């Protein structure tokens, strides 16, 4: 899974969000490192919707502009949980070996 996809799913993990909300949230989650542009975001959302990993929650009109809120589907939550566990296991392995290497140096 690409990092941007992972971060988008993470942004939706706690509740539904609209497009601009996802962009600001992804920036915050990544500590300002990942700045999604609209084109990239909607390419990813389009694909995630086609794969049924996210769905549309509701629509709102705010200041004459359309906002569409997206939410994770059960399949999306499952996939995100599996990916997070995989990354965590890899990170734990890396950290433990680095500690080991530091101890023997």
């Amino acid at each position, binding site marked *: 899974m690409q990092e941007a996809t992972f971060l988008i799913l993470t942004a939706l993990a706690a509740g539904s969000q609209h497009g601009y909300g996802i962009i600001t949230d992804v920036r915050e989650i990544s500590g300002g490192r990942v700045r999604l542009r609209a084109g990239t975001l*909607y*390419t990813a959302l389009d694909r995630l919707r086609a794969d049924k990993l996210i769905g549309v929650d509701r629509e709102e009109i705010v200041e004459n502009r359309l906002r569409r809120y997206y939410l994770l589907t059960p399949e999306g939550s499952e996939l995100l949980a599996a990916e997070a566990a995989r990354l965590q296991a890899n990170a734990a392995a890396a950290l433990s070996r680095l500690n080991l290497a530091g101890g023997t140096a």
Partner: protein
Amino acid sequence: MTDPASPERGYRRLLAWYPQPFRREQEEEVLAVLMAGARQGQRRPRLMESADLIRSALGMRLRPVGPELPNRRWADALAVFSVVAPVFLLVVDILYVALPYHLPPGNQRFFGYPPLSGPFLIQLPGFDFAVGCQMITAALVLLGLRRMALAATTAFVFTGSWPATRFRFRWSICSPPVSASWRRLP
């Protein structure tokens, strides 16, 4: 009317690159995101933002829609093929004619049996028609108008009993756009 000092018109122009079904459903939504991200006093789309939108739009045009092949890799491969193939055939046919002009007579054999390439080909009745058909088909596929490409292809094949199309144009006209059009049909 949109405010001429706002980047909205520029954004709409960029959003026109997206396929029609996407625009119908999401143009206003994406525009809202772009306007929310626009800086104070910004009058037109920024360069990187524009490049990102065009790349995303072209990517969507290459992607299959609706229920089709179960395997995404095959679906992606078919999508790319359906765009690349008609353009490739058009370019090859143009080269078939243009290149022999620049080759010494002895080397013309390299590009096939001489009477089927170069100046001879261009003299065939119906040559302009055949290349014109391919240009139209390639343009329709690139514009994402798959149904029209299929309709045009069908029409070309039916009128394709033209003398020149008996050689090789018949196949190059009809084969790739059929797959392109078939892919987009619901």
